[in-house]
């Protein structure tokens, strides 16, 4: 009987230790990144980054996204909902993290669309028709190009702009920032520099709402 008790105690200690260590590690990591946020906010929001929302909004929702990522597309609706729920309080910042093969070209298309003032239209169109221009998780750039064209972007100009080395620089910068912030999956969310540690819609809402409170936006 004593042996069984020792065995059970060790089992419990291991599980308890695991849970405690996990929560401690996650807190440490969040604190670390939060600190980084204050020190170098530009890692989260670059001058070239597309921003949607009221200029006066105090809460920056930074989304590292891959246009070919399904979860990014399905989160875009939720992000719109929460921005509508707190009008004028949240700014959405899009950063590129094109991890899928071939998604680089699509990110370049978005940058091209931005020059024509059609970034958000192009991004929405790409998300909505993602199943059309990705096949078996493979990007088909020609199809994506058509989608962007149908969103009201001048294709000829886009073709020229996409070759501009400045666009490659923007992508390289976003990639470097994603690496610096430890974003290795998409979408990678940060709210005022605080990472979404546990992934999920409810968790993202809670993080946004806590930042709204902290910034006296509520």
């Amino acid at each position, binding site marked *: 009987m004593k*042996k069984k008790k020792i*065995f059970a105690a060790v089992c419990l200690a291991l599980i308890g230790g695991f849970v405690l260590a996990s929560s401690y*590690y*996650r807190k440490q990591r969040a604190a670390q990144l939060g600190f980084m946020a204050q020190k170098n906010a530009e890692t989260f929001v670059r001058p070239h980054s597309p921003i949607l929302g009221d200029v006066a909004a105090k809460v920056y929702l930074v989304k590292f996204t891959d246009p070919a990522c399904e979860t990014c597309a399905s989160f875009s609706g939720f992000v719109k909902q929460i921005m509508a729920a707190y009008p004028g309080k949240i700014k959405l910042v899009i950063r590129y993290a094109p991890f899928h093969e071939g998604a680089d070209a699509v990110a370049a298309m978005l940058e091209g669309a931005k020059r024509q003032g059609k970034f958000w239209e192009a991004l929405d169109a790409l998300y909505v028709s993602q199943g059309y221009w990705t096949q078996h998780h493979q990007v088909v750039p020609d199809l994506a190009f058509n989608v962007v064209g149908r969103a009201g972007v001048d294709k000829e100009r886009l073709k020229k702009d996409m070759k501009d080395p400045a666009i490659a620089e923007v992508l390289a910068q976003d990639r470097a920032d994603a690496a610096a912030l430890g974003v*290795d999956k998409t979408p990678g969310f940060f709210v005022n520099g605080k990472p979404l540690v546990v992934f999920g819609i409810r968790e993202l809402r809670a993080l946004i709402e806590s930042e709204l409170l902290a910034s006296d936006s509520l």
Partner: protein
Amino acid sequence: MADSEADWNILFACWVIAAVSTAGSLFFSHVMEFDPCVLCWYQRICLFPLVFILAAGLFPLDRTVVRYSLPLAAAGLLTAAYHNLLYAGFIPKGIRPCAKGVSCTEEYINLFGILSIPMLSLLAFAALTALLILLKRREP
């Protein structure tokens, strides 16, 4: 009776090593989000079942559990030894089996300048193998 008591203790120590190693391995992959490389996976295949096999041998004490657990521990030890040679650079690049995916030689942690993840695995499998052989030798 004293003998079986000592046997139980040795087996229990083995189970503790396997359980702690498994928890650590899951912590690295699930909490710290390190992707396990191919060689790590082979070692995990050898390690994870030991937690259950060894526990089953404890209640009631069954010495024959050595027959089922020693092959796993030995295979894990060999894989870990190979992994450490690769990690330390003793095995040249050309014959590395895991060029794609996660690199087997990427350094994730380094405690006290020596304790890498492959080294922790080697130590655990070495201790397991030694204790299980000891238990086998003690068989009447």
